[in-house]
């Protein structure tokens, strides 16, 4: 398939980029591995799920706009390789085969995934991410368990707890790293977004009405169980996330734990392309972009959370802006006034988003508190002690830690362990900003050999000339 613009990711950012560019006459393909557009926050609910909240309406509206647009939506399509010759080339695994999309311009809008700082027992079935719980509830109408502990930090805590209650489930406890005072301190920044304030108040009212115990300045010390989660043990922490010595522990019976410590931009694609990245205190390593969201190489734009955590509203505006910039670069006339308006909107919405991403940040002492035997790399079962041993043996960058321990070599490709591993390395190299992320390599997601191969015979394999005798 050959188009003017390829967009990777059909979340708020990618879908809006595609729509804006198509609106200015570009032929556009948008690629996403989900079956429907919407990304994480506007994920399409299953037919069995009836919802009528703002996110659901926004998502439905977006999907309708895409449906009636000229945008070619490659759904259920996993992009596994991006390369550049004269044009961009995206290789996509879809319906059991691999196809190639070529494009003159590219927008990367791969969003973010969740960060969960490791603790003993976090690999037990029944422990899921906090954002993961929103997907279960919003898109599938399924509860995480009979009795769920909701833990971590940021606004998703109240959202998840309230949604579980609304769906008729039981929340055994809410465990928040932040104090009440920290939440109050974040309020002024939210004044620009009364809708968010109102939603938050509603969630907290529901939690209070259900008499759910809320533990501020607490963390999960351990998830307990053998084959699956049976109980969650809590402890008090200080502002840095360090366990307070001697404080009493609390054990809570639960068959589900939803826990998350913020979001991490998914930079697999931007690292693969060797774009310039920068370290940002709130979002970590992100792909660098300028005011028009152009990345560090020509004909490439970065929209949404791949360039920094900012929430859905910012992502959608950035998407439009990137789409306009691409249209303009390919010779279509886009109104400069609209771009300026979008930039102003992004700045406004960005303030509330910054406050929220500050509340979602992992606390600085958390990595240090990981016990030696705690698994850091879930795929390869690598405990902290093995990572420390590699560091003691002289490993000074993340790739070396990976080579010497297999941390990050499994099928999640370092997405689940990368943050913790980097935080463990940080004190040895003068801080987190000196720990460059893993080298980006294809495939962007594990890809089945079957999908790549198709039907072929020996003669169809383009075997190069033999090696020297």
């Amino acid at each position, binding site marked *: 398939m050959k188009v003017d613009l390829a967009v990777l990711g059909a979340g708020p950012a990618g879908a809006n980029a595609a729509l804006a560019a198509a609106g200015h006459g570009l032929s556009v393909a948008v690629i996403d591995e989900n079956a429907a557009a919407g990304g994480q926050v506007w994920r399409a609910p299953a037919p069995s799920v009836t919802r009528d909240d703002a996110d659901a309406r926004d998502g439905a509206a977006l999907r309708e706009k895409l449906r009636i647009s000229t945008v070619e939506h490659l759904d259920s399509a996993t992009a596994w390789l991006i390369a550049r010759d004269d044009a961009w080339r995206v290789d996509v695994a879809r319906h059991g085969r691999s196809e190639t999309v070529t494009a003159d311009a590219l927008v990367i809008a791969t969003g973010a995934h969740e960060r969960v700082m490791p603790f003993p027992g976090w690999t037990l079935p029944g422990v*899921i991410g906090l954002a993961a*719980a929103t997907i279960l509830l919003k898109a599938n109408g399924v509860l995480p368990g009979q009795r769920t502990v909701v833990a971590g930090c940021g606004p998703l805590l109240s959202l998840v707890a309230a949604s579980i209650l609304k769906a008729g489930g039981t929340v055994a406890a809410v465990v928040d790293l932040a104090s009440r005072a920290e939440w109050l301190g974040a309020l002024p920044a939210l004044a620009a977004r009364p809708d968010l304030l109102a939603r938050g108040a509603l969630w907290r009212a529901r939690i209070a009405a259900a008499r759910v115990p809320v533990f501020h300045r607490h963390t999960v010390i351990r998830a307990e169980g053998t084959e699956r989660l049976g109980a969650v043990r809590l402890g008090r922490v200080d502002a840095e996330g360090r366990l307070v010595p001697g404080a009493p522990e609390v054990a809570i019976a639960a068959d589900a734990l939803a826990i998350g410590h913020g979001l991490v931009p998914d930079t697999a694609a931007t690292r693969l392309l060797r774009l310039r990245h920068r370290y940002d205190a709130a979002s970590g390593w992100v792909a660098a972009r300028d005011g028009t969201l152009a990345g560090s190489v020509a004909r490439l734009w970065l929209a949404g959370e791949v360039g920094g955590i900012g929430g859905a509203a910012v992502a959608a505006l950035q998407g439009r802006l990137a789409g306009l910039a691409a249209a303009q670069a390919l010779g279509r006339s886009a109104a400069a006034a609209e771009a300026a308006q979008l930039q102003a909107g992004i700045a406004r919405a960005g303030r509330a988003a910054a406050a929220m991403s500050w509340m979602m940040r992992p606390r600085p002492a958390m990595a240090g508190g990981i016990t030696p035997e705690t698994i850091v790399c879930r*795929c390869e079962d690598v405990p902290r002690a093995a990572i420390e041993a590699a560091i003691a043996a002289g490993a000074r960058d993340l790739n070396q830690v990976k080579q010497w321990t297999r941390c990050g070599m499994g*099928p*999640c490709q370092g997405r*689940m362990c990368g943050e913790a591993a980097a935080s463990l390395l940080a004190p040895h190299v003068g801080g987190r900003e000196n720990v460059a992320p893993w080298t980006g390599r294809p495939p962007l997601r594990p890809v089945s050999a079957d999908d790549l191969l198709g039907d072929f015979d020996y003669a169809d394999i383009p075997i190069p000339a033999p090696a020297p005798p």
Partner: protein
Amino acid sequence: MRVDGRDVVATPGISVAAALLAAGIVVLRRSPAGDTPRGAFCLMGVCQECTVLIEGRAERACMIAVRDGIAVSLRGPHAE
């Protein structure tokens, strides 16, 4: 759904991972290195913990929607 040959009632259109959870099936596989039990974790296609065999292929259960009669094997790609 057919899960390891057994019939499991599931809501069409939700993800296989969600349907398994709703049916009380939380242990989806064992980790290949440490042989410890694992279940769905991120539900957005990233962690790969929910990888099972669906219609004979290694797939992320959270990325595949339930269809009538869909065959799921929890023995997974790592089992022998």
